[in-house]
């Protein structure tokens, strides 16, 4: 164990005018994660606020910026930052206190695209699926809703009305699911200005995704679907079926 210095962005809305960085000493070895370090600091200063739960990259709670890059605290290690390390709250979200951000805008975008199986068919037999049908959407089903992709997305930073990477990737995931019949309900959200078309394929969302969901690919496949939907709508409105 060696002692080292880390910086943490602190902000208490009741006392501070704006966020500021404070430095702390932590004991670290090769196995010390950013989340471990934050918990050590909390022992020194119980007023430090941050979210965490599972410690194994499943819950998606401990998202923070590590040297200005969105990361899961539990999956990021101090050994990879030998020079300096500054932990700050996720970008593009309003800070509530210290490292805690308001995730409400993200959750609203998520619910808007109806990320659940839509199938009113009443049946007592299970909806079976072949491995090929599963493979179509499986990669996009690994999202843990951590919000790192929203912090990485410059378009979400410029326009918070943009549905954003995780929501659009999940819309694509359910649209690709052979058991789902809800594509027609989801397409208007994808077709909108704040749907897939705000994305300019920067691709940083896919780079920071801790579960390798590749939301940038999902959104750009969504653009093809939306373009097809537009062409079909022209035929439908002109009476051709």
């Amino acid at each position, binding site marked *: 164990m060696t002692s080292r210095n880390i910086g943490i962005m602190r902000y208490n809305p009741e006392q501070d005018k704006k966020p500021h960085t404070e430095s702390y000493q932590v004991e670290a070895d090769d196995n010390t994660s950013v989340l471990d370090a934050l918990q050590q600091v909390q022992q020194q200063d119980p007023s430090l606020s941050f979210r965490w739960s599972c410690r194994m990259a499943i819950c998606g709670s401990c998202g923070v910026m590590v040297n200005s890059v969105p990361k899961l605290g539990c999956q990021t290690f101090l050994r990879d930052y030998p020079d300096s390390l500054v932990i700050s709250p996720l970008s593009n979200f309003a800070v509530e206190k210290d490292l805690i951000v308001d995730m409400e*805008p993200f959750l*609203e*975008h998520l*619910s*808007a695209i109806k990320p659940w199986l839509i199938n009113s068919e009443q049946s007592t037999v299970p909806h079976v699926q072949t491995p090929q049908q599963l493979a179509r959407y499986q990669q996009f089903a690994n999202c843990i809703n951590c919000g790192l992709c929203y912090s990485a997305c*410059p378009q979400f930073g*410029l326009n*918070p*009305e943009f549905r954003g990477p995780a929501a659009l990737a999940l819309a694509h995931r359910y649209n690709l699911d052979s058991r789902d019949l809800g594509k027609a309900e989801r397409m*208007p*959200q994808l*077709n*909108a*200005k*704040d*749907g897939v*078309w705000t994305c*300019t394929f920067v691709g940083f969302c896919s780079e920071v995704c801790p579960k390798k969901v590749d939301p940038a690919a999902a959104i750009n496949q969504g*653009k093809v679907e*939306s*373009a097809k939907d*537009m062409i079909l*709508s022209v035929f439908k409105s002109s009476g051709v079926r």
Partner: protein
Amino acid sequence: MSNSGQQPTRSDEPIWWALFSAGGVCFAVVIPGAILAVGVLYPLGLIPGEMLGFERIRHLLFESFLGFAGFIFVGVAICLPLFHAFHRIRHGLHDLQWAHGWAAKSACYCSATLLSVIALGLWVAAH
């Protein structure tokens, strides 16, 4: 957040995105091919001079493909890349927060349309 029950209106972006995509392919395939032939191989003497001679090029541009080869070449080497470039400029202006919305969009695509009409017009005039 706009999460009301009302359906959002459809974006016209697929049209511009389709032109952008087509222009991207032309930028990647046709223009390097043209530069290679005219700008590299010909000056280096690797293709015979008569291949790019006046009579042959005139025949290629105005007589082959039912007389429309030149029209198609101007389309894929100038018009579609123009839409590709102006699409990037429009989104670049938005990213830099210099200009966005209806005015920037109109200025960009009107410029692409105008320059395309001039390019195709020159071909028609020379025909």
